């Protein structure tokens, strides 16, 4: 069933009796060509692009809980492609282009809103760095605009540009960036994949891999053994836990990142704004709540909840640039588990075990990467060669000294 305005009208006039479940509830078959482990945004996108771009027929997505119950439902919904390094920027720009055409492609309203993102500058050195970054973005076909303090003050009159300690000296804007309704991304990809014949199997937890002679033959699950010609791990946040079942150690630590939503307000915040002196980013959802976040808690965690010092730090960041928020009440906060990699960049690669593939290490940039991650991972799975935009995301880059370290933090996952 195609969704359209006409369809909504017709259903409205006929008592909404024609809507059907957006995807089938299926039991696992004994054998698939491709098994994608993880029914989050990346896993569902991978399955969808496997079927759409590569004509894959027998594809299963195994999800231990329910579709969209993991990190795709626990992020701050921002999309952007404002990266510096050659290994990253073409990939994220491809992702942003896919976001721009996504709703038409999957016939699903993902509420993609290109309301723009503004990174604030607070020092001369930071302006130099952001100028360089903006140029790198433009060289890779993205859009970037360096703004003066005057322009910022005119466009965002509520910003405190004269903060004594962190005055605002300018900003780097990407107008094509914005926000997306995150749950709709999972549901839209699930529905589109399902229509192409992908089996989405919920409540199916992978408990182990069957590996013989250095080759992965399939996966053990709580719903029995499933044979798979190619097995694709796509469980960022839980990568350590899953790949330990294949006796693999990863260049990844799991960390908790907290996110926050305020009570609903009238429109106060156009676009996404990030604070450059601390670590704070904020946007306003369509419901009116301010959605914001900051740093990791900074220690290994699988707990999906953080501690109070970071809450305080994030709120201090908010007050430093948006003094108008002083009386806004926090509505709720939550933690998501991030695959923090050793250089702050992801991995989309085959493993040393034949037929076993890996996608993870998204740090806290996974949401914006969803379409390109699925696109490139599907390409790798179908053709056994990396996609041209993801050639740098290899496992062996650490041994070869080819890290993609945007922040220059070295192998300190908690600092990326």
């Amino acid at each position: 069933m195609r969704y359209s305005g006409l369809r909504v009208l017709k259903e409205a006039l006929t008592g909404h009796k024609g809507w059907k479940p957006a995807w089938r509830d299926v039991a696992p078959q004994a054998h698939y060509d491709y098994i994608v482990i993880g029914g989050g945004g990346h896993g569902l996108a991978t399955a969808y692009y496997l079927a759409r771009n590569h004509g894959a027929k027998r594809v299963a997505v195994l999800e231990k809980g329910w579709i969209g119950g993991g990190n795709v439902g626990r992020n701050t919904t921002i999309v952007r492609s404002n990266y510096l390094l050659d290994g990253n920027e073409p990939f994220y720009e491809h992702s942003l282009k896919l976001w721009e055409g996504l709703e038409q492609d999957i016939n699903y309203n993902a509420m993609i809103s290109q309301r723009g993102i503004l990174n604030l500058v607070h020092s001369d050195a930071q302006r130099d760095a952001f100028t360089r970054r903006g140029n790198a973005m433009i060289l890779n076909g993205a859009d970037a605009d360096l703004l003066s303090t005057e322009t910022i003050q005119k466009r965002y009159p509520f910003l405190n540009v004269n903060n004594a300690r962190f005055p605002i000296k300018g900003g780097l804007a990407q107008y094509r960036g914005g926000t997306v309704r995150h749950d709709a991304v999972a549901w839209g990809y699930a529905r589109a994949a399902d229509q192409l014949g992908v089996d989405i199997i919920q409540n199916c937890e992978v408990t182990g891999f069957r590996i013989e002679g250095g080759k992965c033959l399939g996966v053990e699950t709580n719903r029995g053994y499933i044979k798979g010609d190619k097995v694709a791990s796509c469980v960022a946040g839980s990568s350590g836990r899953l790949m330990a079942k294949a006796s693999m150690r990863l260049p990844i630590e799991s960390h908790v990142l907290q996110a926050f939503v305020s009570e609903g307000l009238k429109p106060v915040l156009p676009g996404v704004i990030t604070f450059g002196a601390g670590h704070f980013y904020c946007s306003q959802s369509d419901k009116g709540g301010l959605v914001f976040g900051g740093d990791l808690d900074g220690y290994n965690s699988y707990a999906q909840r953080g501690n109070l010092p970071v809450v305080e730090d994030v709120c201090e960041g908010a007050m430093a640039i948006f003094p108008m928020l002083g009386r806004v009440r926090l509505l709720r906060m939550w933690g998501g588990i991030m695959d923090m990699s050793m250089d702050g960049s992801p991995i989309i690669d085959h493993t040393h075990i034949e037929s076993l593939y890996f996608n993870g290490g998204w740090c806290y940039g996974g949401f914006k990467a969803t379409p390109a991650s699925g696109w490139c991972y599907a390409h790798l799975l179908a053709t056994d060669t990396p996609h041209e935009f993801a050639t740098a995301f290899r496992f062996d880059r650490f041994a070869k000294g080819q890290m993609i370290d945007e922040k220059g933090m070295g192998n300190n996952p908690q600092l990326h």
Partner: protein
Amino acid sequence: MIINHPILGPRDSAEFTYMGDAALLDRPDWQAKDALLQFVDYGYLRDNPAGPHIELWYHEQGDRSFLVVTRDTTTHQISSVKLASDVARGRGRSK
């Protein structure tokens, strides 16, 4: 989180800087034949368990000691805190 410092007693974890898996205490032998491979593993690969994790915390805002803390990564519960220097000496090292 409260870390029960062996010398200073219970301290807020905000006084500390997290320094990663305590396996980092044991540097590979730089003269070994496969030292390069060992250092790649040492520098970049982690066990990253969901459960008890033995890790290093540096008391940066306090006495600057390194602690070896055993903490459950699924609950943040801390079960043991030792001075890293004691742990290293226990393994026959001079410091």
